[in-house]
Structure formats: C-alpha cells, structure tokens
C-alpha cells in the first residue's frame, strides 16, 4: 500500500514517521479479510462508535418504551391519552429536586395533558421507520438503476441516465411536498416509499460510475470466460466490490432522509396529526415556544441526535472503507512498530 508522502521542511522526522506508519498499516492488516479490516477500522473510529452506541440506545428506547405495534411497552402513558396535568402548565417532572428524579412526565405535558415523552417516542419511531424505508428502498433502486446503466452501457445507459437527470432536476423538497400532500395521511410506510422513489438518484449515479470502472477489471473478464451470466457477474462479482461506496452513501442518504421527512412533516405535507412524527411535533408546538418550550426542545434534540449519529457513522464507514485515508498512529503504536 502506498501512502502519499509529503515533505514538511520543519519536520525532519517526517519521512521516518511515514515509513513507520506504512509498517503499521501493513502489519495490522496481515492475513485479514476485507470485511475484518473494515470492521477493525470502524471500531477504532471513536466518533463513529459512540454514534453507533447512542443510535442503538435511541432505537431501543423508542421501540421498547411505548411498545411497537401490538407489543406493549414499559412506559405507562400513551401518545394520545389525556392525563391530569401534574406540574403547573405541564412542566417536565424530570430534574434535580433534591437528587435526580424522572417523575411521571419527564418531558412535560402539553396544554391538554398529553405525555411529552410518549409523544416524542412515538415521533421517533415514525421518523426512524421512514428513514429506514427511504434508506433501504432508495438504495435498492439506486443500485439496480446504476448497475444496469454502468454495466450494460449503450442505449440502456443513455435512457436510464437521462431519466435520472430528469428526476435530479426536480428539487427533493418540492417533489417530496407534492407527494406528501397526497400520501402523508396514508401513514409512514407509504410516505417513506414515495419519498424513496425520488431520492435514489445520487446513489444511481455513484453506482454507475463504480460499475463502469469495475467492468474493465480482469476479474470480470475471468468470470465471463468462466461462463458467468450478466446478472451473475453484476450481482456476485461486481456488487461486492462496490459495497464500500454503497454503504457509505446509504448512510448519508438516511441522514438526509430524516431531515427531509421532519421538514415535510413540519410543513404539514408529511405525517399529519393525529399521527405523530418529530417534525409534526415541532410544527404543532412551535407557537407554544414562549409558554411551554420543553414541547419544542425534545423533538428537536432527538432529530439532531439521530441525524448526527447517522452522519458520524457514515464518516466512520467512509474512513473504514477508504484505504487512502491516513490516520495518525498513537505514540504507543509508534513505539511498538
């Protein structure tokens, strides 16, 4: 593996540093499969690991607390039930009142006594669900379109790419709002599916580029000589090699998907009341900011946390998949090498 070297005049130790870094790189990947190497690099990315743990905790909290579908959760309140207002004005019961305490309504209540925590959890569920649907479906569409265009080339490539160009010309927030105006009321699954139908374009372009360069490689010729069919070459031989690009961009796609969904719900063209999503909560409670700011704080914090975690995971994955990335080895590792 070659690492591009830079000459820094102020630092005579630099070239030896480069060499030892090379040595470390080579030593640590000896005899490991590609997947293992990637996993190792990812685990070592501190930001990404913290993000992965936080995201897992958020998912667990959102799904177990108020339950998922028919499965009941451990939280006593439901998003829609009207409870008695505990604190004056529905103030959060969580806080430091002679020691930390959670209380019956940790995220507060709204003006008619609905439990803030249950509503935020329900919103998180919906937003995560839509994010996952968009991520999976848009990635799949993008892979299929990009793989066909990049592998078959010719008129199919032309046709698919002009179509991609057309879809890419339409701003996502615009087409999302138009579709959301129709399908938002029909629930998160249909909304997510519809949004996936317009967000696959970047993935298709990237996969196409990757496939165009991969199909010139020797292993593809070898597979063809061995008698493999087109679909086998595409999905068994080339796709695994393009996986790095795909996974990284699927993550980034999901980060923008949650922001898209919450923005649409905020505008009133996504999930609408009485159903709950994080963006819809902010829309519903923005006028109450002066009197009940907690109703506004928590959904926003959850959106930011989820998007931030997904972005960090994407960054970690990119570093893990891209061998050109340079890292500074710790002093201890330098001493060992």
């Amino acid at each position, binding site marked *: 593996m070659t690492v591009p070297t830079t*000459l820094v005049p102020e630092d005579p130790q630099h070239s030896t540093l480069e060499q030892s870094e090379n040595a470390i790189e080579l030593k640590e990947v000896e005899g490991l499969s590609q997947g293992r190497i990637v996993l190792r690099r990812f685990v070592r990315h501190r930001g990404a690991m913290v993000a992965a743990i936080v995201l897992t905790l958020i998912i667990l909290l959102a799904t177990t607390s108020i339950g998922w579908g028919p499965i009941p959760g451990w939280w006593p309140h439901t998003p829609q039930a009207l409870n008695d207002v505990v604190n004056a004005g529905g103030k959060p019961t969580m806080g430091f009142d002679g020691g930390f305490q959670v209380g019956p309504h940790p995220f507060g209540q709204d003006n008619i006594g609905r439990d803030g925590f249950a509503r935020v959890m329900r919103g998180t569920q919906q937003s995560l669900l839509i994010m996952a649907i968009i991520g999976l479906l848009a990635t799949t569409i993008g892979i299929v379109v990009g793989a066909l265009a990049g592998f078959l080339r010719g008129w199919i490539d032309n046709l698919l790419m002009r179509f991609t160009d057309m879809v890419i010309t339409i*701003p996502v927030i615009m087409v999302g709002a138009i579709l959301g105006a129709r399908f938002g009321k029909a629930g998160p699954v249909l909304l997510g599916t519809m949004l996936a139908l317009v967000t696959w374009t970047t993935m298709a372009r990237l996969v196409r580029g990757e496939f165009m360069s991969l199909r010139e490689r020797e292993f593809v010729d070898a597979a063809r000589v061995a008698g493999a069919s087109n679909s086998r070459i595409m999905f068994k031989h080339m796709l695994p090699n393009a996986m790095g690009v795909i996974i990284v961009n699927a993550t980034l796609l999901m980060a923008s998907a949650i*922001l898209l969904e919450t923005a649409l719900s*905020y505008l009133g063209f996504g999930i609408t009341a009485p159903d709950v999503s994080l963006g819809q909560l902010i829309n519903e409670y923005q006028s109450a900011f002066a009197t009940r700011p907690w109703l506004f704080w928590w959904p926003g914090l959850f959106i930011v946390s989820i998007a931030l975690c997904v972005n960090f995971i994407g960054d970690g994955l990119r570093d893990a998949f891209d061998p050109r990335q340079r890292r500074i080895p710790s002093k201890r590792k330098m001493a060992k090498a």
Partner: protein
Amino acid sequence: MATHVTTRAEVQSATTPPTSAPGLSQRLRSAAPMLSFIARRLLSSAVVLIGATFIVYMLLQLSLDPLEDLKTSTAPNKEALIEARTRLLDLDTPWPLRYLGWLGGAAGCVVGQCDLGASWVTNQSVLALLSTAIPSTMKLITASTLLAIVLGIAVGIASALRQYTGFDYGVTFLSFVLYSLPSFWVAVLLKQWGAIGFNDFLRDPTYSPVATIGLAVLAGLIWMALVGGDRRRRAITFVVATAATGALLAYLSLTQWFLAPSLGIVGVAVTGAAIAFAVSTLASSPGNRRALYASLTTAAVGVALYYPLQYAFVNATALLVAGLALVAVGVGLLVGYLFGGADRAQSMRSAAIVGLGVGLLIFVDRVMRVWPAYSNASRINGRPIATIGSQTPNLQGDFWVGSLDTFTHLLLPTIALILISFASYTRYSRASLLEVMNQDYIRTARAKGLSERTVTMRHAFRNALIPLATIVPLDIAALFGGAIITERIFAWSGMGTLFLTGLHNRDADPIMGYFIVVGTMLVLANIVVVFVYAALDPRIRVNA
C-alpha cells in the same frame, strides 16, 4: 503538470491539439466544435427539462384534487359548483392533453410570448406572481450565499492547515452538528433568542462582568487554536486575544454602544489598517512591501474621505452607493498601479480589495448612525430585529433608514441560511485543500525554497478552489427554490412561499411556474459547471 492553473477562460476542444499559446487562427478553428458542443448540450438539457416538467405535472395531477373542498361541501348547489370548476380548470380533458397545452404556453417563453397560466384561486397570472417572487428570493439568498461561501472556505482552509489539531476537530464536529440541524428548528430558535432575546437585551444593553470574561476567554481559546504554534506562542496569542476581546466587550457595555452604534473615524481607521495588513499578507508574496504600502495608502485615502463622504451621503440613493463602491475599487486600482513594484498586478489587487473593504466600513458606519432614530420610530418601538416579513410597513425614512430596515429583516433568515450551507463549504474546502497539499507540485514548490505562505496561497489554495467552483453554481440554483422552509418561517414572500401557497390551494399552475424557474436555473448551472471546470482545469477537456 502545471504548477498552478491558468486562468485563461478558454475551452479547447479535443480535436485541436493543446498548445502552449494558441494563436488566433487556432482559436477560431476550435470555435466551431465548441459551438456545436454548446448547442448539443443546450438541446439535451432542454429535453431533460421538458421531461422533468412532465413528471412534475403528472405528480401534481395525481396528488392534487382541485375539487377536494367541493366534494365534501354541504352547499345546496354543490353539483353546479363542481360543474363550474370542472369547466374553469378544463378537468374533463385528460391531463396529458392539458400538459401539452401548458407546454405550448411555456414554450412561448423562448420567443417572448410567455403564457404560464394563472392561479385559479387568486386569478393572478403566474408571470406576475413570479416577477414579484424572484427578486424577493434573490434579495434573501444573495448575502447569505456570499457570506456562507467566504466563511465556509476560510474556515475550511484554516481547518485543513491545522489538520488533526483541536481546532480541526472542533470545526469538523461543528460542521457535523450543522449538517444535522433541521433548519426549521434552528429558525424558530433564532426567532426566540436572536430576535426576541436581543430586543429584550436592548432595553438595558449592558452585561455582567462574568459574561464579558467568559466570552473573552472563549475568543482567546479560539484564536489560540487557530494560530497554533509552540506553547509560548499559543500562550501569548491566548493572553492577547482574551485581553483585546475583553476590553472591546467592556467598552461596548460601559458606553451602551448598542443603543447608538457607530464605528466612528477611529474605528474605520483601525479596522481599515487591519484589513490592509491582512489582505496584503494573504494576497501578495512575502517580499512585496509595495503591496502593503499600496493597501495602507488606500485605507488612508478612505479614512481621509470619511468626513467629506458624510455630506455626499445626505441624499443618498442605491445608485450613488453602488457608484461609490466602484469608485473605491477604482481608487484602489489606481493607488496600486502608482505604487507598482515588482508585481504591479499584486499591488493593484490588494489595494482594490482594501478600497472596497474600507468603503464598506464607511457605509456600515453610516447605516449604524440611523440606528437610534430607526429603533425609536413608532413603527419599530424599540424592537428593531424583525422576525417576519421583508420590510416594516409604512415606515417613514430616507435611504439609510430603508437600508437599515432591510438589514434588520434580512439578519435572521441570513443566519439561518448560512448555518445550513456553511458546513458543506467547510467540508469541501477542507477536503479539497488536503488533497492538493499532497500533490507533487506542492512538494516541488517547497523544494525550490518558496515560503510556506506562498505555497499555500498561490499554489495550493487556488487549485483547491477548482472543485468548489463546480459546487457553487449548483448550490445557488438549488437555493433559488430551496429556501422554502426559511421563507415559510420568516414569512418572506419569495419563491418558496409561491410554491407552498400553490400546494396549499391545490393550484397547479403556480407550482409549474415555480418549477420551470428552478429547473431552468439548475440545468443552466449544470452547463456552467462544465465550462467553469474546463476553463479552470486544463487537464479537463470538453468532449466535442
């Protein structure tokens, strides 16, 4: 490989062999394939755009039902109402045919006979709607785009030059957070704190010593991380920056500066000198003292004109101010030319930038001076930072009051828009500069003994801007239609509002009008990108 990019804005076709200095005849010969390339590119873009309008039209027909309110209506003449609206909107014709009718009208725009339809709810023609919405949106996005680009690139470059330091990690983390912020959430927070909070603060514009010290230490830490160096240098930076910031904040608080802000001639002189030093350091080679002298002279000329200009400003108009800005640049160019030196272009460039900067300072100072009058006007009533709209209705005042009114309305949406796009510019410019700094020609430049500043500014920085030049046009085009959420929250009646109102009213024609503008901008931006890239990077050739 070229040490740095030629700025010759000429795209050579692949058919002409590249030469070091193409003669006129060669340029003419290369013009023909060039034209055919442009023609084909425009044609295919037009096809893509028409296809996209078809998709949007189809989606609108599927999503919006203009009869929705009537179907659930309880009016006794329900049938007749439905009948009337069906006739009005021609709903009995299949939508593909109606699309062709719309396309025919839109195609008229090419020959100057635009017919984009009309809103059936308000009866206004789409052209009229667009002609008020487009200038309004441009007003909103111009300042924020420029500021986001400049700030984003500056911070990204600084972060790349301090790779793997606390500053770099801080900037990286910040840009990730900004990436993840939902713009509607930020905008509501800005309204609450930026406007209402600041307006409350203005009632008694003093702050506690604790706040002063806290802010000063924060500023000191940022400067320390930014300047870097060894321990002693960092300590000195920290102390100086903290003391300077603390003194400035204390001065602002004690003199109640926020009630009657102004820079004054002293402020203009000090800031102008700082700009002169900064610009000549960044934009000229280290040995070029002439550039510094030219910049300082230009700043001095500006300061000398401070009082005479106040008379010229009495009956100012936008045209006069724009003219004065041009004069400022001209003065800078002239001073730079007169100083000359080894590299005359450098001196002229530095001095022109300084001239513009000092001119801007004097303008800002003049706008600040109407602050007390503006703030106490009956329409404003001591709460100058606006949360909605683009101007205060029925505000009496001259050009300066009007300008200040525009600025106070632009402030919050601009901050919101900057926060959104700042992060991506930072990330791009950081990655781009790091990539360039690893190139062989940077090593060559260092090896031939150039100073680190010259290597960074003249060899690395310019090349690092190339990838950015391809992103900026697309971003501007996207912002054109993409400020939907920001416009909604700040009640700014531009393109985004046009779209949302149309969608809310189930009114297809305004939405199509909105899309034809945004789509055309995007398609044109794509063409611009190809040419900018080919013009800036001689390694890339446009395939004719």
